């Protein structure tokens, strides 16, 4: 589905990514782990075209889209839940959901009803403006908004930031369901143990480089990594 090869990116003179490579198959859940400022978001943004990669390839279903504008890349079936939510403040909750909604590949799996079913709280607030929501509600909205584009690959940057435990659990259940439906998922989150429970593979970034990648069993088994990233 998605293949990243030798991705490099920089902000002005300061290079942040130094040749990131990984791949995600359809129906696969992959995580990006790493401390603050290691380049996780930059990786995601480079894939989406929000940051113009300096080198490397971003191949979606066989086509190299590196350097193309974000809307073209998104149209290939990528749905982004950005870091910091980035809700449209002057749109109501419902407008946030439908404004960019699309279904580019067959019958829509995600509709307004289904989103509201997943997050009843959003339905209660559907007429409110985006910036009137609480932090957690905004996060739900950002996830709903991305799902409404009916993507093949969902990218969640800080997937459960600000969400209450109950909702967090809902999200995990939902993501598992998505996975079952054959959806690919790229996820960044700090709840590593929860991720370990259902993600297929993990990639650890350090200073813009992939320092480790492997499956959940390997991650949980490795005591050094465990100490470093799981804090258990």
């Amino acid at each position, binding site marked *: 589905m998605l293949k990243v090869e030798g991705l490099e990116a920089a902000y002005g003179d300061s290079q942040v990514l130094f040749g990131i490579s990984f791949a995600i198959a359809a129906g696969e859940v992959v995580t990006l782990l790493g401390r603050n400022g290691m380049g996780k978001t930059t990786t995601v943004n480079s894939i989406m075209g929000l940051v113009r990669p300096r080198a490397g390839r971003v191949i979606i279903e066989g086509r190299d889209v590196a350097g193309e504008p974000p809307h073209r890349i998104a149209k290939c079936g990528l749905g982004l839940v950005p870091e910091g939510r980035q809700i*449209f*403040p*002057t749109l109501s909750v419902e407008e946030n959901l439908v404004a960019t909604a699309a279904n580019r590949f067959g019958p829509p799996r995600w509709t307004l009803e289904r989103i509201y079913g997943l997050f009843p709280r959003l339905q209660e607030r559907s007429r409110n403006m985006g910036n*009137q929501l609480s932090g957690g509600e905004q996060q739900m909205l950002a996830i709903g908004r991305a799902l409404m584009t009916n993507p093949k690959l969902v990218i969640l940057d800080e997937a459960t930031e600000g969400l209450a435990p109950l909702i967090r659990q809902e999200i995990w259940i939902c993501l598992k369901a998505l996975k079952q439906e054959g959806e690919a998922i790229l996820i960044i989150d700090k709840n590593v143990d929860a991720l370990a429970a259902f993600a297929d593979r993990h990639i650890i970034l350090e200073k813009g480089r992939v320092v480790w990648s492997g499956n959940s069993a390997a991650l949980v088994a490795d005591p050094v990594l465990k100490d470093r990233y799981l804090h258990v």
Partner: protein
Amino acid sequence: MSLTLLYVQTLNGLQLGVLLFLIAAGLTLVFGVMDFVNLAHGVQYMIGAYLAAMFTALTGNFFFGLALALPCALLFGLLLEFFIFRHLYARDHLDQVLATFGIILTLNQAVKVIWGAAPLSVPIPEIFSGSVVLMPGLLYPVWRLVIIASGLAIALLLGLLVTKTRIGMLVRAGATNAPMVSALGVDIGRLFMIVFGFGAMLAGFAGAMVAPILSVEPGMGDNLLILTFVVIVIGGIGSIRGAFIAALLVGLVDTLGRSFGPSILRAFLDPAAASQTGRALAPMLIYILMAAVLFFRPAGLFPAKK
């Protein structure tokens, strides 16, 4: 003061309001909704009027003239967008101010070079040249009714476009966070281009419509630009409804203030002082109105929901 006069003046106030809204409509879209400070709106309005004057003179018919002027205004807007404005969407408001100020200077001068400095005019189209009797001795040209109707129609159209359609939502979303809209799969650049062109055409349309009652002259948009900004700000930026109501309010306050202000003042002051004060206050009226509205409602009458 007779009651008829009061009634007629109220009507006049409302019609000035609708006229102002007609002119402000394009600005509401581009500035209020797209969040682009387009000082060049006034010159786009002027160009619409000049195009209408030119094509009407060429074809001898206002409607042919209008039909030619509108696409030209659209094309002109698109050219401006392509060469200048699209590079400024992501910039600071003040950058937009400086660039569009430059455009004002250029176009005001260019218009003078092309069409000369003397004012031009456009005759009222034949079929609308009649008038209705408003009060004894005073006629009301039907064309003004047409202007009011088109102002109302545009208010409605814009209101629906912005609040009810996907395009409206996307434009509002793009104004606050264009990259995010793009990352969700919408070509926001093209959308902005279309909307901007539409805004330019609205400005041109306003210019063309008022050409039969107002003079067409270089710089005609400059003072109006300020007036339209006043309208939009009083209404609350981003609110079409606000802009519409504010336009009516400005029209009413201006018209009624001018016609009845001095006699009201005379109730409090001696005649000489009243006329002196009245004269000093009259031109300030709408500014006083704006300052007062902003004092009590710092984000306009209908602030965008925050």
